[in-house]
């Protein structure tokens, strides 16, 4: 799905634009040098890898936390299932032995309550499990920011090294994926819930 990155042909088609971009880059570099910002720029460049590693650290730790929660949820769900099963067996026993129900009438009610509460807790555990998808969503955003920081670092380094970027690195993709929508307000090109997905597909006959 990739298309050809900017080629000498495309540069040749816009010689003025590339000449102007080159001039702006040189002016920016000279201005930074004259104003003494080159050192600050160097400091920024040096800090970027640190920012990247901090973000990666956050992604790793939140990922590990999510995995721990999932392990606990999975164990909890097994226990709730056992509890519900025991409750169902107890209720069956009470129904089969009238003397038990007669001696303690609330026994049947308690056993059915145990089943209902175990099922309710199981549903809550499912919700807790689903909430761990934050790791996937935030992880994708963090990966993008880390990638962006890498690009900025590379470009700033290029500026510091007095090289004029011409058609800079990075693959230009015909269909680049956007990742999670961080802010959908005012946007018409994205969906914000599953209903909009379904409506869109239905409008296309799917």
């Amino acid at each position, binding site marked *: *799905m990739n298309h050809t990155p900017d080629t000498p042909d495309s540069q040749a088609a816009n010689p003025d634009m590339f000449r102007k971009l080159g001039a702006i880059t040189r002016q920016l570099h000279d201005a930074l040098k004259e104003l003494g910002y080159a050192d600050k720029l160097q400091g920024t460049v040096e800090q970027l890898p640190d920012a990247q590693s901090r973000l990666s650290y956050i992604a790793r730790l939140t*990922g590990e936390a*999510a*995995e721990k929660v*999932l392990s606990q*949820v*999975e164990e909890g*769900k097994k226990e709730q299932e056992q509890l519900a099963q025991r409750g169902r067996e107890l209720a069956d026993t009470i129904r089969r032995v009238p003397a038990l129900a007669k001696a303690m009438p609330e026994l049947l009610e308690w056993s059915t309550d145990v089943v209902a509460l175990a099922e309710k807790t199981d549903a809550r555990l*499912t919700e807790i*499990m*689903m909430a*761990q*998808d*934050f*790791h*996937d*969503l935030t*992880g*994708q955003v963090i990966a993008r920011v880390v990638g962006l920081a890498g690009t900025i670092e590379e470009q700033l380094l290029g500026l510091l090294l007095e090289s004029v970027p011409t058609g800079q690195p990075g693959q230009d993709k015909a*269909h680049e*994926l*956007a*990742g*999670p*929508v961080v802010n*959908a307000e005012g946007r018409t*090109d*994205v*969906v*914000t*819930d*599953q209903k909009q*997905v379904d409506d*869109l*597909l239905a409008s*296309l006959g*799917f």
Partner: protein
Amino acid sequence: MSTPMKFLIVDDFSTMRRIVRNLLKEIGHADADEAEDGAIALGKLKAGAFNFVVTDINMPNMNGFELLAAIKADEKLKHLPVLMVTAEARKEDIVLAAQNGAAGYIVKPFTKATLEEKLANIFKKLGL
């Protein structure tokens, strides 16, 4: 469901693979395997007998669109229903998935009910 189905869950995030696997189990589909990107998934699909693919889109090596295209281009695999479960919420991505033969599209974050509903719709449509 008359016959048990084997699912392949494809996502580069282990958390999400685990969530989908647990949800499928709760819905009644305990037989599932996992792959962390499209390339690994394609290898597993060619080697094993799967009945259904649930895949993310944004993944390294081979993304979900590329996996979908590879499945639909393979005579032995093209019958497989592919459900996209992704954070990609752009309309053009949804349309692209549908045009390329995806059986369904779910945007993250999603609920158990949504997954259950989409699977039921796909099964019904395919007569499974």
